[in-house]
């Protein structure tokens, strides 16, 4: 057999049927469900009298709408949507991690955390950041509500074969930088549509050197480059992360799984449709200045001038972005003052992210006038952080310590920016109004968000005295 990519091996193993000149019918190993993109799917199953084909391969959680402060849900629509999920899961026999169960959390945090996400699997969820799970070598992609219904009813999805793209990170990441800086730089280089129609495989020494959690951050943002999915070949880091997790194989099954997982990495000589190389050896901490994740610059850089862009579409987009962000061309990023800091989201709210940020803020104070919150990615991460005393460090520095959820990443719950407020955020999208209508979002790493909180403006975390 000819040399195959990691992607192709997973794809081939899941083709139920290949239509001539048409899509393949792909089997799905794990379907993750949350409250926002599922109610219409369950309703349609009910109307059509269709059951959930494989409840044993389906897991639901509450994340997008949940309040992160103690107390009841005051928003009646949010409450109704969460209640609908509870009822649907009960009626269709789907396992649900409801708020307060101790296992709830952002859907892309709990999958890996519980060991549900494993190398070689196909994983879908009605959420574009499903690409996160690719960090463990699983083919994971976001789907719409009609497709959620399709998977619930059939455990399969018709899929056209995507193109493949290799993004190779070369060089050694400088001290003090993080996976977030790598992926923001990559999106800045290949563009927000650079991965369109493609499954990206991230390779290179800088990827191998990342922890599992750093890899999850990189794959999480694949969709921000427009990609269907992002993948990293499993290795000893992956296996060490997985071993002992509640749903990971154990005993003889673990040994058998390891054997299969070792076969997954792309073969020598496997061909990709496209390729890009990112040199990280001289990378600086990244901060976005615009209204998409590709509008990014090193922290010691300046807000660009629209006239620097030759492409008219791009020039206009930059003009619009600077107007929305209320930034003047040429302004040094370190002079941009912020109002809020959000450390959270499926990109950067795992335990290592919180440890890194806590290390930066330990013994220091959030700048006057800055409102800073930390929202752990899951109930488990929250518990672990509290066991390590991170909550106390954050609170002593003036951060609020919240309950798990998506929170200010998209502001479906009460955690939002007011019009005109500027936020340093560890999330993944700086679209207009993403964190609240009129709010201005700057994406950065947890360490950089922590530094911004202390200074009240953007700052190179490596230069904090």
């Amino acid at each position, binding site marked *: 057999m000819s040399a195959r990519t990691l992607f192709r091996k997973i794809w081939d193993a899941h083709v139920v049927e290949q239509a001539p000149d048409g899509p393949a019918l792909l089997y799905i190993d794990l379907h993750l469900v949350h409250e926002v*993109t599922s109610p219409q799917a369950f309703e349609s199953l009910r109307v059509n009298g269709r059951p959930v084909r494989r409840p044993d391969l389906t897991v639901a959680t509450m994340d997008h709408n949940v309040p992160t402060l103690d107390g009841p849900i005051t928003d009646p629509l949010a409450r109704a*949507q969460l209640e609908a999920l509870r009822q649907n899961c009960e009626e269709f026999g789907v396992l649900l991690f409801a708020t307060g169960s101790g296992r709830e959390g952002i859907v892309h945090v709990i999958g890996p955390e519980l060991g549900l996400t494993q190398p070689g699997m196909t994983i879908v969820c009605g959420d574009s950041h499903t690409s996160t799970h690719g960090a463990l070598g699983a083919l994971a992609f976001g789907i719409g509500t009609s497709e959620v219904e399709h998977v619930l009813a059939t455990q399969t999805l018709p899929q056209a074969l995507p193109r493949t793209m290799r993004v190779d990170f070369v060089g050694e990441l400088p001290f003090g930088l993080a996976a977030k800086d790598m992926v923001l730089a990559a999106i800045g280089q290949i563009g927000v549509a650079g991965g369109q129609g493609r499954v990206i495989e991230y390779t290179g020494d800088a990827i191998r050197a990342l922890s599992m959690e750093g890899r999850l951050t990189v794959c999480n943002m694949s969709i921000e480059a427009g990609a269907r999915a992002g993948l990293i070949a499993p290795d000893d880091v992956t296996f060490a992360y997985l071993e002992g997790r509640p*749903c*990971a194989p154990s005993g003889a099954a673990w040994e058998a799984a390891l054997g299969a997982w070792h076969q997954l990495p792309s073969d020598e000589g496997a061909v990709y449709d496209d390729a890009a190389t990112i040199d990280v050896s001289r990378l600086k901490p990244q901060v976005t200045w615009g209204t*998409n994740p590709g509008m990014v610059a090193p922290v010691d850089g300046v807000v660009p001038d629209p006239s620097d862009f030759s492409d008219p*579409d791009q020039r206009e987009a930059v003009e619009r972005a600077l107007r929305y962000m209320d930034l003047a061309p040429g302004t040094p990023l370190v002079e941009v003052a912020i109002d809020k800091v959000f450390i959270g989201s499926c990109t950067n709210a795992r335990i290592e992210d919180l440890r890194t940020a806590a290390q930066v803020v330990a013994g220091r104070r959030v700048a006057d006038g800055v409102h800073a919150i930390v929202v752990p990615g899951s109930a488990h991460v929250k518990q672990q952080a509290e066991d390590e005393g991170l909550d106390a460090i954050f609170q002593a520095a003036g951060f609020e310590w919240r309950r798990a959820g998506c929170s200010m990443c998209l502001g479906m719950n009460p955690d939002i920016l007011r019009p005109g407020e500027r936020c340093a955020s560890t999330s993944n999208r700086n679209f207009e109004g993403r964190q609240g209508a009129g709010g201005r979002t700057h994406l950065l790493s947890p360490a950089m968000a922590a530094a911004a909180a202390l200074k009240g403006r953007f700052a190179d975390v490596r230069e904090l005295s």
Partner: protein
Amino acid sequence: MRALRTVTGRAVVLDRADVDTDQIIPKQFLKRIERTGYGEFLFFDWMRDPDFVLNREESHGAPVLIAGRNFGCGSSREHAAWALEDFGFRVVIAPSFGDIFRTNAVNSGLAPIALPAEDVARLREAVGRQNELTVDLERLVISHPNGLRIEFPFDAHSQETLVEGLDDIARTLKRGEAIDAFEASYVPRFDLARIS
């Protein structure tokens, strides 16, 4: 889903690249559990600008949206396609689309047609003179009264879904035997009993 064969009518030109689904339908409208009624929230924040193109009289009832590249990028929310469809659009023409949006559109009875940027520019120019287009999903051709004809590629599976107004799930359920055969030797990768 209603069938979509041929559409004739006005086009609205939305001259922006990378329009994400957060703009098409902001999050505060995703809390509803219904599938209909999103049209009034379409481009909610941009609609507050009286000069926004969709606020113009002639935009109402137009079945065709001509958009910029990478239209519908970002979030997987199918509500974006529902909102466009509910507002009255049946076809979106753009140089490229976000992948998930493209699938969502087809599943919502909205045809996402990707054309080379030059062809999109020719269409924009033509509707600027006389605002009328006919989009034929069966023959895969767009035509304008001035004689302009642009053929477009469209994958056969999606074409069938739209033209026949198919229930995609019913089509897959017809492949039940193949799924059964696959599952005969299938071993789940985890046991949820360990965490329930």
